[in-house]
């Protein structure tokens, strides 16, 4: 079989995942039901900071259907603090984060007591019989107040609310100049404060966990992004040997970073199952999710840009205060660091300084949310670039163009010391401007302004890049991250010629089954349909570091390419033996070995797999398998980029914003599946728009989350959103053999500043230069009234 096959990579293959999902044949964790399984309910603190002066679960024990009830005190000898894998500095303050509060609660929603019952309703009913008294303690919510002298302390024993201060200075690092000098000499210096509001990731599937405590064979099903990391940490935290722990992430309904924790709920369910010796399930309600699953963003950004009057940037300094919440999650302190190297964005900036202070408050902890650090960075730099344009009376595109790295300047070493391997910012921007009809819309804007139209028009520009493909293990180590950044893949060619790919990535909507099938089909010359991909179960996929940070394709996809390469090389030895030639005389192409110069002397991988399985005639010393494993650790990050443009109409009477047109041109390198890439861009952009216009987690003065349901935390529906016109340029990454870069977070990173820039642009004639996100009608209206935010 030597028919030339069209490459799979690049095809808009429809997803294999869909068949089950569109027919309801799904396996969400909450669908799991085991014989004898019990149900768990959690009593959560209604207080943001309090001492638990009395806690009595004996009443709950007497309720119908209840098996047991317990508190943190009952776990004194068992529970340990939840892990934080990223101690960003040596002196970082890392308070003990017990899954079940011992004597003090530090945010509203913290687990206080647990009921295990025969059915979920009985468990919830029995919570009402738990007697608990709280002695309230002073609540600290505001980050700057928390850092002030004499502030009430979230963790009294730590003596401070400061978690850490982390600094990068290009002068000190030897990667650039001195910012203080640049600022002293600056012809133009612009300072702004931007506030990234607190967001709630809002994956659609509430978290759920089932633990089956079979001795020597513990299994946890969890709605998690990180089954492998969870397995290792579960073993370390509970003392259960890792080879006796199995973690399964079955169908997982979205994550967006929100499911990368090792959670209190997972640990509590583990302890409960251990206590009762039976399988136990916990499925949270959405109200629980809102207060207990980690939040995102919540950063105050002070940014100073220095430039010459011709628009050339001469220096950039950034000072952040980042809200950790009451405790640290898995990567909480590191999130701002993921943005630290991105404030310089696509621009040639000679001097840069970044400083971030993490602070504890009596709020739900923060951690990664789609983009994690990079949306914050992109927002600040892309907002202040517009201010520079206004200051210098330049078009916002022009001021960017004067500063960005030119296509011919790649590879380019940035002021942070990162090497951008490839990019073409002119190409992406020119294409986007054309798609938007930039000049026509500018003309309309002018006309509306001079007519005094109550509906004003603005155009927002966002030219972004991001670092993804997390991550080179050595760099992670240098940043004090507690794990590596490699990824693993295994390829099994079965006796019947079907291919089984096992990946260490853990998709929850990203379409790895389809994309990995395309990659393997090309590498092995087998039909797309003949490849299956297994993941998310540590017993099947032993090795892996899971899915977050747009890493799966750029790291896990490359591991798969390498595993396929090993299969081919093993097969070559067997083929040479069977075709009676030297391995060097074989040419491999599209799944077939061909003896050079001997037409007809060919063997396919599938045929070789059959021969190897029979093992009747193998060369001496060759194992009867062509299966292979590979682990890939990237040398560097990948750097997708793009240009997003938003045209927004603002009703100046009501403050209502309507996105009239949104176009984006993304460069994510080589595209494996354009359909999936487009879907990621759409979804990412909408989450970015949602931060700009709709979403905000709000606490009252006592630390109660006011936006504790989807009634008040206003996610946009289809009716609130525009059509997005997306296009691509394709500048392959040079840092990996597929030329891929990653796409999962791009839209979210790019969209928020594009939208806010558009609204502010519309309102420049009213003297508006900033509006706090989300741009609610009232905030927009007040900005118009006041001439400022």
């Amino acid at each position, binding site marked *: 079989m030597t028919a030339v096959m069209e490459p799979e990579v690049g*095809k*808009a*293959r*429809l*997803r*294999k*995942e*869909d*068949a*089950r*999902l*569109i*027919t*309801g*044949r*799904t396996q*969400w964790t*909450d*669908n799991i039901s085991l014989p004898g399984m019990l149900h768990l309910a959690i009593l959560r603190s209604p207080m943001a900071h309090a001492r638990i002066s009395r806690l009595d679960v004996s009443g709950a024990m007497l309720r119908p259907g209840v098996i047991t009830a317990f508190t943190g005190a009952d776990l004194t000898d068992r529970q340990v603090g939840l892990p934080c894998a990223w101690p960003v500095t040596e002196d970082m303050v890392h308070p003990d984060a017990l899954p079940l509060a011992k004597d003090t609660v530090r945010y509203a929603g913290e687990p206080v007591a647990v009921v295990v019952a025969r059915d979920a*309703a009985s468990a919830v009913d029995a919570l009402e019989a738990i007697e608990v008294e709280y002695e309230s303690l002073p609540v600290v919510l505001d980050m700057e107040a928390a850092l002030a002298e004499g502030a009430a302390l979230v963790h009294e024993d730590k003596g401070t609310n400061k978690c850490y201060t982390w600094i990068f200075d290009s002068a000190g690092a030897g990667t650039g100049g001195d910012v203080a000098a640049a600022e002293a000499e600056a012809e133009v210096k612009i300072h702004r404060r931007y506030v990234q509001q607190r967001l709630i990731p*809002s*994956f*659609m*599937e*509430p978290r759920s966990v089932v633990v089956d405590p079979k001795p020597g064979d513990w299994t946890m099903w969890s709605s998690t992004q990180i089954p492998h990391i969870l397995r290792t940490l579960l073993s370390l935290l509970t003392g259960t040997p890792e080879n006796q722990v199995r973690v399964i992430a079955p*169908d*997982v*309904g*979205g994550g*967006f970073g929100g499911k990368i924790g090792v959670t209190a709920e997972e640990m509590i369910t583990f302890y409960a199952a251990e206590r009762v010796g039976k399988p136990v399930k916990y499925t949270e*309600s*959405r*109200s629980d999710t809102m207060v207990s699953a980690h939040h995102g963003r919540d950063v105050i950004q002070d940014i100073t840009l220095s430039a010459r009057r011709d628009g050339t940037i001469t220096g950039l300094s950034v000072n952040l205060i980042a809200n950790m919440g009451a405790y640290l999650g898995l990567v909480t302190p590191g999130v701002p660091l993921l943005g630290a190297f991105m404030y310089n964005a696509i621009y040639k900036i000679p001097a840069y300084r970044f400083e971030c202070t993490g602070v504890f408050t009596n709020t739900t902890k923060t951690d990664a949310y789609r983009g994690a650090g990079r949306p914050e960075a992109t927002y600040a730099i892309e907002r202040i670039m517009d201010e520079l344009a206004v200051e210098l009376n330049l078009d916002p595109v022009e001021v960017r163009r004067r500063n960005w790295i030119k296509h011919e300047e790649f590879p380019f070493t940035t002021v942070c010391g990162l090497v951008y391997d490839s990019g073409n910012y002119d190409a992406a921007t020119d294409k986007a401007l054309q798609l938007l009809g930039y000049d026509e819309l500018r003309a309309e804007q002018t006309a509306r302004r001079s007519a005094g139209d109550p509906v004003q028009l603005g155009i927002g520009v966002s030219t972004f890049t991001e670092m993804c493909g997390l991550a080179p293990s050595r760099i992670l180590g240098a940043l004090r991250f507690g794990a590596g950044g490699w990824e693993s893949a295994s390829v099994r060619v079965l006796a019947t010629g079907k291919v089984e790919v096992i990946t260490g990535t853990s998709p*929850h*909507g*990203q*379409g790895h089954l389809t994309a990995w099938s395309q990659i393997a089909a090309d590498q092995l010359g087998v039909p797309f*349909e003949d490849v299956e991909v297994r993941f998310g179960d540590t017993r099947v996929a032993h090795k892996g570091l899971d899915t977050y940070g747009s890493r799966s394709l750029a790291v896990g996809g490359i591991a798969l390419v390498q595993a396929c390469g090993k299969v081919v090389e093993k097969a070559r030895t067997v083929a040479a033996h069977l075709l009676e030639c030297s391995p060097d005389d074989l040419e491999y192409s599209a799944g077939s070995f061909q003896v050079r110069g001997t037409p007809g002397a060919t063997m396919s991988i599938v045929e070789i797999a059959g021969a190897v399985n029979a093992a009747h005639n193998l060369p001496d010393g060759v194992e009867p398998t062509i299966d292979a494993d590979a682990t890939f650790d990237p040398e560097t990050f990948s750097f997708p980029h793009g240009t997003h443009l938003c045209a927004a109409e603002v009703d100046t009477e009501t403050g209502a914003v309507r996105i009239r047109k949104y176009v984006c041109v993304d460069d994510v390198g080589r595209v494996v599946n354009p*359909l*999936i890439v*487009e*879907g*990621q861009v*759409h*979804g*990412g*952009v*909408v*989450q970015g728009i949602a931060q700009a216009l709709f979403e905000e987690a709000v606490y009252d003065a006592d630390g109660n989350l006011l936006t504790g*349901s*989807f*009634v008040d935390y206003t*996610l946009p*529906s*289809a*009716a609130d*959103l525009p*059509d*997005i016109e997306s296009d691509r340029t394709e500048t392959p990454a040079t840092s990996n053999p597929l030329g891929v870069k990653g796409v999962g977070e791009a*839209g979210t990173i790019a969209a928020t500043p594009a939208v806010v820039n558009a609204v502010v642009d519309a309102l420049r004639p009213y003297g508006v230069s900033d509006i706090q996100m989300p741009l609610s009608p009232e905030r927009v209206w007040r900005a118009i009234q006041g001439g400022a935010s």
Partner: protein
Amino acid sequence: MARISVTVDGVQYVDDVQPRTLLVHYLREQLGKVGTVVGCDTSNCGACTVLMTDPDGDAHGVKSCTVLAMQADGRSVTTIEGLASPDGALHPMQRAFHEQHALQCGFCTPGMIMAAVDLLQDIPDPTEEQVRKGLEGNLCRCTGYQNIVRAVIAAAGAQRGAPSASEPESEPEAAPEAAPAAESAPAAERAEPAVTA
């Protein structure tokens, strides 16, 4: 406990339920219809949407988390698991969701598909704006909705082109009087429709 009689996906069930049992919990826990999911507790997300008949016998999209099982007594319910025809052929809406890449994680998908089927019953040839407005009761966090809108418009076209495919709901009377256990076998067989490009 009170007794109810409900037809779900063509099969009639008689069950005792607690009055407080929500229809979605009845479907999931008593009938094993776990294809229908719960995404919130305030009737916002629409992930639990199913079709349910009104007193006149007309089926409409409802949020099964905001209906008591008692309120479904005597009614007929169609879930995502009963949408494909008995021979396994996908409903045009299911096919369109697949072909237009209208789902990613798939959690909102059952409710989104059922809401879209309901929408086309009232507006067989909707504009994009009508689709967006018509799906305002369903939240999706992955897709940005754009391909969902495309899918609904594509399904509308397919239904107009092939009118026979646009009547997926079998009359309850027409369904065989099968026991719930018997019904699960064909359902399992039709779990893997062809999805090649």
